[in-house]
């Protein structure tokens, strides 16, 4: 049984999705989805533990040996990402019950959970597979279900947002599949490990850099790296709250993982950084994203949109760390992947509580909410402190690694830009905190009660995780450090 865990990780949610669609009662569908997502989470924990002991797990689908068959290949990098995706999936699905009933039409709810599980399966599939074409397949599964999830938002603008997401996402996927096609044409293989062995022999052919370019653009679009980010803010702002929390914490993270995998494992760090000099493209874009997106966030009055822009800046942090190409830099990138998933999901879930009670997350409508929904706003404040990077939260750990990574190679101005962007985070988070605690409630808003426990408990679970992994980061930073060593070929 345990040797089949890698495939079960994906198959369980994949198979559960159609069953979920057939369930006729909304709550039944929810219960089933919760069960499945927690089972998935449990599997991801078991897998990470196994990988920490064994370094590498290779699983041949259907018994077809790689490189002929499809291989699921787990090392510390993707085992860690699996844990993030499955963990957030489990917490968010638990949270979803009331929030989704409130925001999604009742008869669509079973379909909602089906799409949710499909999306989860797709993201897990991208992460676990060792086959490049398989990445594309799962990418489409997760993306298509994500488009439909976004479209289920209550606001009618959700439809245009989803359509835009669909168009941009499809362009990205097309670029990726073209890139994969070129690589296949050159090497005759789709297995990543096999590709890594065969590519150096043909890397002087012009097709390989072209494939590299296509992949770089396609993946950057999926990451929502500036300037390919335009699909993201509206998709996050108008999607149902639970969907926003889930996608913000997982979808872009998995895309960052694909970036790591393709450029470090398939092409190899020396090719990506020394020959093609990817860092010369990635780093400026990352820095622009960090600064401009934080700046734009300051001027948003829709708080979900504000956090969406903040996510774009945070994606910049991850990309920046990765683009340094050093052990500490890549560690910082991977660590922030985990940490950012924790802080953003906590923040978006807190906003979900606000939506549940007052139906909007407009800054003006949130005035005075700190008195009426103390637990919700406290959760938002703590999540915000984590985003700013205050010590004893995960945000600080990320920031520390990133700053040390930059200073290590003596890039002063970059370190300065990082802290400036943190200070911008203070501004946009504190706008909300001040409004909620100091301003009088807007006229005409009736008495508001605190959000129900079924929403508060998952939110606070994530908030406490923010603090726990901020106080004791030896596990996360240790795993991230080892994962970076694997990617850079220094470890195993």
């Amino acid at each position: 049984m345990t040797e089949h865990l890698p495939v079960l990780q994906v198959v369980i949610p994949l198979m559960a999705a159609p069953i979920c669609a057939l369930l006729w009662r909304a709550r039944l569908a929810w219960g089933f989805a919760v069960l499945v997502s927690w089972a998935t989470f449990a599997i991801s924990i078991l897998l990470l533990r196994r990988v920490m002991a064994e370094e590498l797990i290779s699983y041949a689908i259907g018994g077809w040996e790689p490189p002929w068959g499809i291989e699921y290949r787990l090392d510390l990098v993707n085992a860690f990402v699996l844990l993030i995706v499955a963990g957030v999936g489990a917490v968010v699905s638990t949270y979803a019950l009331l929030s989704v009933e409130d925001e999604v039409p009742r008869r669509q709810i079973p379909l909602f959970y089906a799409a949710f599980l499909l999306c989860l399966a797709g993201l897990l599939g991208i992460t676990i597979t060792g086959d490049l074409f398989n990445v594309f397949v799962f990418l489409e599964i997760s993306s298509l279900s994500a488009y439909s999830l976004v479209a289920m938002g209550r606001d009618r603008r959700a439809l245009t947002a989803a359509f835009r997401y669909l168009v941009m996402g499809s362009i990205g996927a097309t670029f990726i599949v073209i890139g994969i096609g070129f690589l296949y044409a050159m090497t005759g293989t789709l297995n990543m490990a096999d590709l890594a062995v065969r590519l150096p022999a043909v890397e002087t052919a012009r097709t390989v850099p072209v494939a590299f370019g296509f992949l770089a653009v396609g993946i950057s679009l999926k990451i929502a790296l500036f300037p390919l980010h335009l699909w993201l803010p509206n998709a996050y702002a108008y999607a149902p709250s639970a969907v926003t929390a889930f996608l913000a914490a997982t979808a872009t993270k998995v895309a960052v993982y694909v970036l790591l995998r393709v450029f470090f494992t398939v092409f190899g760090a020396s090719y990506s950084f020394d020959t093609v000099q990817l860092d010369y493209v990635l780093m400026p874009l990352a820095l622009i994203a960090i600064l401009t997106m934080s700046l734009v966030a300051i001027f948003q009055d829709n708080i979900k949109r504000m956090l969406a822009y903040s996510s774009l800046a945070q994606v910049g942090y991850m990309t920046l760390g990765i683009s340094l190409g050093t052990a500490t830099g890549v560690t910082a990138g991977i660590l922030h992947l985990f940490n950012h998933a924790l802080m953003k999901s906590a923040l978006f879930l807190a906003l979900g509580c606000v939506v549940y009670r007052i139906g909007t997350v407009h800054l003006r409508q949130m005035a005075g909410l700190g008195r009426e929904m103390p637990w919700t706003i406290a959760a938002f404040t703590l999540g915000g402190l984590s985003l700013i990077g205050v010590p004893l939260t995960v945000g600080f750990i990320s920031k520390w690694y990133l700053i040390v990574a930059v200073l290590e190679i003596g890039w002063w101005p970059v370190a300065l830009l990082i802290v400036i962007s943190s200070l911008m985070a203070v501004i946009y988070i504190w706008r909300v905190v001040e409004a909620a605690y100091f301003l009088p409630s807007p006229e005409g808003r009736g008495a508001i009660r605190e959000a129900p426990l079924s929403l508060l408990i998952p939110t606070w679970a994530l908030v406490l995780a923010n603090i726990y992994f901020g106080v004791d980061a030896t596990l996360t930073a240790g795993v991230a450090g080892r994962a970076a060593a694997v990617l850079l070929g220094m470890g195993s």
Partner: protein
Amino acid sequence: MTGELLINLALLIPIVGAVLIVATGRHPNVREGVTLLTSGALLVTVLALTRLVIGGARPESTLVELVPGLDLQLTLEPLGMLFALVAALLWPLNSMYSIGYMRGNDEGHQTRFYVCFAVAIASVMGIAFSGNLLTLFVFYEALTISTYPLVTHHGGEKSMKAGRVYLGILISTSIGLLLLAIGWTWVAAGTLDFVPGGILAGRVEGPALALLLALYVFGIGKAAVMPVHRWLPAAMVAPTPVSALLHAVAVVKAGVFTVVKVVVYIFGLDLLVAETATHWLLYAAGFTVIAASVAALRIGTQRGNLKRLLAYSTIGQLSYVVLAAAILAPLSAVGAAFHIIAHAFGKITLFFAAGSIYTAAHKTEINQLDGIGRSMPWTMGAFAVGTLSMIGLPPSGGFVSKWFMMMGAFQTGQMVAVGILIVSTLLNAAYFVPIVYIAFFREPAEHGGHDDHGHHEPAHGEAPLPIVIATVVTATLSVLLFFFPDVPFTLAEQMLDGVTGGAP
């Protein structure tokens, strides 16, 4: 072993106190009992630790490994002991005062107030005991965050704006500059531990070292070296007990303590003496001393807000400590350490008096104080004693520390520092003496200054008893420090032993 236990207890007691305060929030009398008991227990613990440290022990405790290779580490050394002692000694008094003040003025959200206060004290203990820079930074930020709700206690637009300045300056300097400086130190030296004699010798030099020092000094916004001082006057919107213990003692002393600690244990006196590029610090601190005194004098001559005047006085007094450290002479370093405690006793007395006046007579401006000494003799008597310490006259602790600073400056021939000390002393006298004068020797005004509604104000006497007792006790402590300076001395000298003995 007992040392480790005590150190952990000192951190834990205020936190447990905070939890208990929340639990008993519905019963004010029990809640205040918890506050008093907690502060008493902390004092006993810290006194026990002081005995250990004076006996030569240096207990330490590792709390948790924050990231691989960097621990949250507590290590006790004499300077930190001195700082912790000041805070622990004044917390019970301040709690007693708070009870009188908060009840006397019918303040709201009292549970939140006492909880945040206890958490702030726990952060102060963490700062005082921190064994490396990262630990210090963690508790430093915790102190900023936990005092924010205290500063904005009254709520509303005015508090919001003041809170914005407070948090804005303290967070932006600490994340923007201090964190960078710590990161740089880590990359350059490979360690963040506080080591007698410093860790930077031979690793950073020349102009880079001067820049690093600037990142530290201005990054430690709590030390209020100009131009990062604006948060302190802003913080005065808080209830007076907050201004008294936190913004005259704990928070600001955490700032100068951090500066002294960085100068002595990260840079090392020898390195700073050798690197002339770093000597700008003396002038920056000197400028702050003079400029803050002038600002206070202006408030005094316009007879403006009393707490605001005290805030500017604090800014000046803080930079005495930085100045004393920047003189880089052993004697002045003793003066710096001593001034941390001397100024604490003096300034808390002044704030207590200001709060006492507010509680009894609802007066906040200096021009309302004519003849107030007649109806509030105890309060204003204590105030007069507090001013002695600020000016640096005997018999007060302030005289002792100023004496040592002067001696250090003479010893190393730094006449600029001597000049700054003399001028600022005159300025301090110029704005404090008139307040004492009008309080005792002017006729009381017929009406209140601003709230003139055409009818006589109700007569008022002294403030509630807890307030008066606390005020008189701190004033007495300030005088006792002049006659019995042994404990702070021993600690300051022990700090120096480590520094000059362990230099590489």
